[in-house]
């Protein structure tokens, strides 16, 4: 696989190629490089560790099998994410097709705690640790109520920090679709988490930075079009 190079010196693409060529260690090395981040994505997409483990395993087997179909048009890590996210979404869809998912019982409670959720940290008080945990739980509970595609987009863009263009490749959709899913998902989360609109945004024009306008009216005479002739 590696010749005189160590595994860390071999690119993802070379490892995948070596796997396709029959190297029995290459895929394990490749997967190990990205395993933790793939796990994070699977966990946040699926919502619990058991299902995430199943989804990640599905993705692992699928990627192993389909390595030969990788054309190199995207980064290997993008392709791996795509396979794992699709495996997770397939698993969710299969599950949802059999039963309706009720909202978490405590969702209303989370909504009532909107001010707590959206409060900015103001101190390092020991209670902040507990507050942070509650806030995290509230976010995850609200995230779980979103449509699968919106949740996947938010996990990849806002949680994992991938560029929208790369997420579009992962989710096999247009950039605009990713933006739309993120926008709608955030708006829904804002409602569920009670993120308040600033005062100026409640029925009034935005109160952000005002458009730059001259503080003193110019005394110059208005310019007229140049006279003909």
């Amino acid at each position, binding site marked *: 696989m590696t010749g005189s190079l160590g595994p860390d010196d071999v690119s993802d693409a070379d490892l995948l190629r070596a*796997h*396709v060529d*029959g*190297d*029995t*260690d*290459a*895929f*394990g090395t490749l*997967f190990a490089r990205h*395993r*933790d981040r793939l*796990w*994070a994505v699977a*966990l*946040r997409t699926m919502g619990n560790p058991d*299902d*995430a*483990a*199943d989804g*990640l*395993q599905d993705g*692992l*087997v699928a990627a*192993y*099998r*389909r390595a*030969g179909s990788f054309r190199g048009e995207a980064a290997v890590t993008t392709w791996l994410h795509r396979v794992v996210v699709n495996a997770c979404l397939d*698993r969710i*869809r*299969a*599950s949802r*097709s*059999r039963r309706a998912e009720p909202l978490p019982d405590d969702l209303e409670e989370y909504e009532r705690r909107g001010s707590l959720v959206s409060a900015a940290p103001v101190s390092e008080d020991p209670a902040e640790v507990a507050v*942070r945990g509650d*806030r*995290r739980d509230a*976010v*995850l509970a609200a*995230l779980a109520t979103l*449509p699968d595609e919106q949740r996947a987009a938010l996990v990849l863009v*806002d*949680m*994992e*920090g991938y560029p929208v263009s790369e997420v579009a490749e992962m989710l096999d959709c247009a950039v605009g679709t990713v933006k739309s899913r993120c*926008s*709608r998902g*955030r*708006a829904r*989360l*804002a*409602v569920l*988490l009670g*993120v*308040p*609109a*600033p005062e100026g*945004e409640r029925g009034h024009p*935005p109160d*952000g930075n005002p458009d730059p306008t001259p503080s003193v009216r110019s005394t110059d005479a208005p310019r007229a079009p140049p006279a003909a002739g």
Partner: protein
Amino acid sequence: MPDEPDLGPEQEQEVRRLLADARHTEPVPADVATRLDRVLADLAAQHGGSPDDEADNVVAMASRRRRRVTSVLVAAAAVVAIGVGLDQVVDSGGSGESASTADRATVAESGGAGSGSDQGKDEPAPGADSLTNSGAAPEQALTDPVRVRPDHFSADVARARQLTHRSAAYYAPDVQALKDASGKIDCTPGDWGSGTFVPVVYDGHRGVLAFRAANGDTQVVDLFGCGGSSVLRSITLPAP
């Protein structure tokens, strides 16, 4: 989903911050890592790192599934008509998965009596009281694949193990017995190693659960697709 409000920049930034704070930063848990490593090892060992072979198996399985659509739909209708296995049909419903639905409707459930033509198979067979009783020759070997649902994998595997205590119709004590019955159960054995094998229908596909010899307090169970040799799923159960 109700209409979502348009967010102002500050609101959107706050939601994004909350999401970023909820990012999972821990590594893969040790048990999951061990499981994934074992799956990888099995894949590598059984296929010599040749994904093309595995892909061929997948295609073969999918095409065979499609070919069976018509016949199994008829079987599913018969199941509904006689009121047996209704729960299987409803529970397996699924977004274009007609073949899967029909497949599931034709297989045995743990508490059910199977299809009308298979009445009586639930009766315990002599010598079929344990998975470890590999010397027993099942009298009604391998006529009823057990349904294993992807989203209830753990529970269904445990249930499959219980079924083997009830009837020899559900398992083969070794791979040779499985090969002998392969035509009967429409399942070509792969390189599945040693163990006790329970034919299953998993997500619409024929396959087997390989119950490995118990090791201490645990027993590993691997799922294979018929005709394939890679572990599709694996689980560790408390030893029987």
